[in-house]
């Protein structure tokens, strides 16, 4: 009987040494004892598909299309062209005559809520390079991102809101070699979020280059002025 116990003990030690302990790091895919219906034959986001030629399940958005139902204004069937044209300011930062908007589009209300949203988005998407203040001293500067400018030079303070919006949408102006130092952020920020960031960038600029006359008289006390 003693030999049987020895054999069992040996088997237990063997199992432990082959299967190891919990939480051990492994590069091999997890073992599935009962796969049941874990993997079903349907398309998943950003997954592979043998059905399409390019091998992806996600279909790229055809150029010049707008996802239905994602615009902030109510869409009605057949009205889209007129609707989008009327909202050129909101989507492209351009006025009806093709010039850059100098004020925020009508459907964007600049209030504390918009600025808070702008700050939130700015901190995620802009601050790594532009810095929390907008002075161009973000963390990436220490790692070789040397071209990030400050928001406070004369040219950038004088940019219209439409131009700021356009910069976020399509990226910075191309260099002589045709390269954009800042790439587009339109895929990360919806048009409304972009306007919120524009409003916050304006606030950052005011914070640095603003004058006492910019502060309404009844609010100066709050700043100790």
């Amino acid at each position: 009987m003693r030999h049987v116990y020895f054999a069992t003990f040996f088997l237990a030690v063997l199992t432990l040494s082959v299967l190891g302990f919990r939480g051990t790091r492994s590069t091999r895919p997890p073992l599935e004892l009962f796969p049941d219906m874990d993997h079903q034959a349907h398309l998943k986001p950003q997954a592979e598909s043998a059905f399409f030629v390019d091998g992806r399940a996600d279909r790229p958005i055809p150029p010049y299309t707008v996802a239905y139902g994602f615009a902030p204004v109510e869409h009605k069937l057949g009205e889209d062209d007129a609707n989008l044209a009327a909202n050129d300011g909101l989507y492209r930062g351009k006025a009806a005559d093709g010039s850059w908007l100098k004020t925020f589009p009508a459907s964007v209300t600049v209030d504390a809520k918009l600025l808070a949203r702008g700050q939130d988005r700015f901190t995620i998407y802009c601050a790594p390079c532009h810095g929390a203040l907008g002075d161009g001293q973000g963390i990436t500067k220490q790692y070789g991102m040397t071209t990030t400018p400050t928001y406070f030079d004369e040219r950038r303070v004088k940019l219209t809101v439409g131009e700021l919006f356009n910069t976020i949408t399509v990226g910075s102006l191309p260099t002589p070699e045709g390269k954009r130092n800042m790439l587009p952020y339109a895929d990360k920020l919806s048009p409304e979020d972009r306007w919120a960031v524009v409003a916050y960038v304006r606030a950052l600029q005011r914070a640095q280059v603003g004058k006492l006359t910019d502060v309404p008289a009844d609010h100066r006390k709050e700043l100790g002025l």
Partner: protein
Amino acid sequence: MSKLFPKSANRLPLQIVLYLFVLGGIASAGINYYATNKWANVGYAPVQPVPYSHSLHAGQLGIDCRYCHSNVEKSGFANLPTAQTCMNCHSQVKTDSPLLAVVRESYATGAPLPWVQIHEVPDYVYFNHSVHVTRGVSCVECHGRIDKMDVVEQAKPLTMGFCLECHRAPEEHLRDLRDPAQKVTQLDWMHPKGVDGQRDQGLKLIQDLKIKPPESCSGCHR
């Protein structure tokens, strides 16, 4: 009549029964230990096409998770970044690195990068990132300290029991997103008043935001 069996054979039936108990005990202990995601999935760290370090980008540089996983607040699926997202910086930083060659190629040709998915629930489970993240369930609850991982590995078992633990006591995990210090992507945040403070805050948030995590089957198996 000679003795066919030695006297010790009298104890054999009892010994066999005893042994079967011991064997059953060892076998069930082994199954309990091994036949679970806690063994099979935790620690899974596949080799990725680019040796991207979360501990450098998210930890050292402090880049928000949402910079790359940008749709996590809007979509059920936490997206992988586009190659352009990498190129936002890497068109100027480490432009010649051979490790980034596949990223540059993907950016130029549009061919997808073959990232290997690590955290995966079975297809019969409905999981939505946005509903969790926008209600104050931090990334860290299911993904662990990604900001400390050079190579990402699965930190939590992601079993049904794991889900239910939180669904039955959400107050122990909910953050107040109105407080900037409690950012949902701040992985090392703990309530300053400890477990009791966290519970009080969580109970209040459940009231305010009407949070009712489903515990019925159809909540997740739809």
